């Protein structure tokens, strides 16, 4: 068990009569890049919201490093080391990029408002440290020199990177990425994949990924889970998932497997 970064035990979340997440079990090993895919409305983002504490699942437990976190507040969960990004970017848009990162460091810093007013030595030391760290992080996500831009003035791809930077500022153990490449052009996507790999390899942060771009998913995932109507319908390595008929049916409807086959053939012919 010790090598699991996070584990969900049969968690369910209902909205009125709708079952958004239905008894989902996930076991995610430390240091892995784990993808969750599924058609629109499959409950992927709801699952993320349960993990990060926005929603409390009605049934089931979420264990982060063996500790139950399912009924804890969002900020507590964040302080434990889970960071996330959002499907539609949620930066603090009227703050500068630098400030966004500094806010991200929130749980890592200890000085209080009294320290700030008095400028205690502790505060001075810490603010110098956090400043240096923030500049380092900006460089890390490729935004060097853009720190004084308002977040809303940055181009889309950079906003995505900044959001990841903000999430990393927390020094997380687990990073939840909600469609990090949505709306990006091919070049930006490639850069993003590089960044995600780098985060895992260099910083040793486990990553859970929601993604619609199958190329990305198949490219970087260690393991993949597939959700459909809130239920996990498959789990496995990218290869296994590609071959799984239920998955293809979930995406393309009944008989989808045959359809996909035909399509693949035709494409080969054209090529």
């Amino acid at each position: 068990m010790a090598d699991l970064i996070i584990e969900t035990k049969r968690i369910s979340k209902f909205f009125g009569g709708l079952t958004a997440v239905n008894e989902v079990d996930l076991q995610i090993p430390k240091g892995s890049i784990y993808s969750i895919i599924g058609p629109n409305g499959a409950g992927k983002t709801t699952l993320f919201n349960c993990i990060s504490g926005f929603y409390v699942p009605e049934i089931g437990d979420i264990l982060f490093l063996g500790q139950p976190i399912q009924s804890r507040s969002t900020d507590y969960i964040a302080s434990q080391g889970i960071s996330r990004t959002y499907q539609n970017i949620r930066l603090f848009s009227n703050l500068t990029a630098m400030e966004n990162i500094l806010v991200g460091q929130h749980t890592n810093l200890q000085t209080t408002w009294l320290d700030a007013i008095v400028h205690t030595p502790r505060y001075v030391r810490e603010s110098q440290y956090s400043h240096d760290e923030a500049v380092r992080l900006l460089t890390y996500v490729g935004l060097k020199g853009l720190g004084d831009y308002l977040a809303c003035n940055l181009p889309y791809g950079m906003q995505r990177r900044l959001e990841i930077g903000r999430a990393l500022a927390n020094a997380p153990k687990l990073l939840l990425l909600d469609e990090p490449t949505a709306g990006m052009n091919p070049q930006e996507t490639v850069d993003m994949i590089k960044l995600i790999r780098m985060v895992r390899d260099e910083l040793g942060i486990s990553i859970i990924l929601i993604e619609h771009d199958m190329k990305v998913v198949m490219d970087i995932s260690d393991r993949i889970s597939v959700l459909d109507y809130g239920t996990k319908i498959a789990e496995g390595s990218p290869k296994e998932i590609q071959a799984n008929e239920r998955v293809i049916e979930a995406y393309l409807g009944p008989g989808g497997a045959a359809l996909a086959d035909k399509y693949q053939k035709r494409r080969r012919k054209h090529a």
Partner: protein
Amino acid sequence: MKVLKKNDRRLKRSSVGKMIRNLFGVLAVLFIIWRLYLVFIVQNNYGPETWTRLLIAGLVIGSVYALIAIGYTLVYGILFMINFAHGEVMMLGSFAGFFVFEATNAINITAADGSVTSLTNAQPVLSIILAFLVGMTFSAMVGFFLEKIAYRPLRKAPRLIPLISAIGASFALQNAALLLFSPQTRNYTNPEFLARGAGWRIMINETAVILPYTGVLTMVLSILLMVGLLLMVKRTRLGKSMRAVAMDKDTAALMGIDVNQTISNTFIISGALAGAAGVMWGLHNGILHYFVGFLPGIKAFTAAVLGGIGNVPGAMLGGMVLGLLEAIGPAALDISFQLKDVIAFVIMIVILVFKPSGILGEVLSEEKV
């Protein structure tokens, strides 16, 4: 990257908040029960006739609040702004009605038997209808121009900006009325059959309780107006476009709805309702001066929030609840009448603490992630 030491001191803070909230609520409810027990069981000072009187007063003032509150709520529903000047719109409507009655009073009509009466008394229904029409039209116009001049250019601005503009408009309208009409207190001259203080006498406990005509008129008329408004919002094209604009302006515009026109219409409607409330105010209470809109304005805003701002039935309910609280609250809880606003505000706070979106307000989805 070096991982700093984690902060493990945070325990279940949210539950502490919940505990405090519940404690607060239980204390409030216990206090109310205790006072009610004292008043109704121990002291029992007031007979049913007194309670009936209080109820009547509460219903009348509540229905005026409700009408004004609807104006706040309509505008809020569409623009998400507090139209702080709404009370002043009501005051101006009241003045317009006052001038109508002054005019009809000045016109003398000689009846067939040679007696001379003023037009107000010769044609009371006509003059009342005229007063309402003029009052509503004038208020509607004020509302329309207010939006056009002070709010429309600010539609894209952050939400506090139109609020300040509205506060400015409130100042300006109030003082314009002060300078135009002088600070003198005016009196509505009602038609004789609607004289203030006159009414049906109901015998309760061998005491006559007067159900004033003007009060009944106020209640009935405001309920009619409110029902009419509800039907309009639900049924008509205009109502539908109002709801559409309230949901999403851009999409509504794409669907071919003239957003500007709809917003103007909303202000016209809310102004007209305020004007009606103003004339009722004048008919029932009689007195009128430039400052008369300020207090009802604040109260109606409170009522709108209490009922769930943006929600039309909520505004009606909120207005009624506030009116009744003000009238009955002090007597029922045996607290000085000086503190009736304190009672109303405290109960409002208690309600909002437990229903953060008002009595009928939709629960704003906490997380729209």
